[in-house]
């Protein structure tokens, strides 16, 4: 008993030293983690946490969606009527597009032409954790190196681009969302082919910048990846233009993603896409 008290008193006497040692330990942890020294240990520790988080995430989403539906019952009725009207209109369009698609298929076969989309390979993954509120907007998924996932590969849903893999473990990975401040995607408008860069905002919205001044940008235009820079394949849907603004040197457009990032449950990871590392050219220029 007395030795324990003595030990405690000893620490209290050297509280400044104790604080400095603990701070150095924490800084050492950050450095070791960034250099990858702790990766095997992190994988071991993260595995049970990710598994538990996956189970909790399913419950949290069910609860959130259930409560949201209850609150939105009246607006949902109105929305349902609007959607039924839109469905009827779109069904007619689908018939026309099927005809065009058939024609395209025949012509492509003739030219022995295959699109990138036909060659894409996907792995489905469940979202097990959401980290959208701190300074980083990211999600964790339950697939890792064992499933062929590598750093840099794009993550999508049928509604469009979600982000790219920034961290990968044996059976879990982390995806940096396109809504993050650090995310930049080379894009183009579907109609005019005008190019720009989509960047995440603090609010979680998307902003398309560097659109040349002469280009016609309209609300409702679909924004796609351009493939420039080699980080993403071309023609993945980013979202829809909701408003535009003219700056001095270029135009900007607010873009709304078709994805609800708060309620993401399942995503597709494009496993056979290899991001191009342009830093090789930068090094050559430097030499």
């Amino acid at each position: 008993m007395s030795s324990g008290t003595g030990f405690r008193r000893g620490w209290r006497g050297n509280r400044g030293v104790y604080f400095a040692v603990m701070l150095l330990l924490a800084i050492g942890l950050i450095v070791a983690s960034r250099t990858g020294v702790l990766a095997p240990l992190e994988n071991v520790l993260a595995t049970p946490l990710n598994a538990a988080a996956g189970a909790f995430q399913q419950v949290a989403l069910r609860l959130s969606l259930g409560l949201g539906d209850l609150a939105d019952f009246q607006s949902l009725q109105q929305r349902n009527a609007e959607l039924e009207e839109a469905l009827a209109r779109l069904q007619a369009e689908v018939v026309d597009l099927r005809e065009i698609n058939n024609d395209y298929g025949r012509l492509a076969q003739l030219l022995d032409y295959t699109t990138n989309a036909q060659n894409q390979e996907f792995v489905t993954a469940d979202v097990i954790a959401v980290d959208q509120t701190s300074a980083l907007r990211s999600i964790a998924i339950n697939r890792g190196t064992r499933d062929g996932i590598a750093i840099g590969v794009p993550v999508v849903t049928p509604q469009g681009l979600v982000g790219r893999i920034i961290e990968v473990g044996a059976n879990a990975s982390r995806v940096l969302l396109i809504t993050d401040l650090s995310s930049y995607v080379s894009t183009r408008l579907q109609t005019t082919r005008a190019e720009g860069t989509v960047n995440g905002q603090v609010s979680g919205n998307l902003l398309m910048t560097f659109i040349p001044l002469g280009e016609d940008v309209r609300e409702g235009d679909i924004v796609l990846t351009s493939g420039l820079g080699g980080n993403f394949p071309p023609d993945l849907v980013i979202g829809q233009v909701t408003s535009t603004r003219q700056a001095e040197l270029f135009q900007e457009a607010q873009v709304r993603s078709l994805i609800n990032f708060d309620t993401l449950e399942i995503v597709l990871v494009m496993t056979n896409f290899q991001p191009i590392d342009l830093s090789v050219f930068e090094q050559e220029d430097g030499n």
Partner: protein
Amino acid sequence: MGHFLAFPILGLAAILQVTFMPQIRLFGGQPDLIMLLVMAWIITSPLEEAVTWAFVGGIAVDLLSAAPRGSSVLGLLILVFIIEQLKGQLVNLNIIVVFGLVLLGTLIQQITLLTILALNGFTIRPIEQFFYIVVPSLIYNLIFSLPAIGIVRRFKRVFSPRRRLSRRTINE
């Protein structure tokens, strides 16, 4: 006992932090359960136990986030040592003191995290992030602070029945 309690309590809190808490987000802010629990623990416990809580809680939440491992530990440690210094000067633990500590803790955690992210090459917009993330998080933390202290006290009563917790504990 306090050292061992950190693992189940903070492990569960970290999981809730990345699953349930994003569903109640206000703008970009949400409650920081780990920070609140560590703060509640240091108020009523010895420094060594609180340091264990800072490490366990920080690592658990960092393992479930994209931030570099240890980022949250750093902020929590600074908070723990500041509260340890203040303990001797606190006469009693009233709501104003608790809210003051929550304000301090939220600012320390967010500023530390933003600094580490900036040093690691991530894009940071401090002023925008202050109003969009820090202020709403602070509001949530204020709301959740009293339940967090209540939970920690209950745990301490259950696992340390002989030790009577009173306001006097703060001055120990």
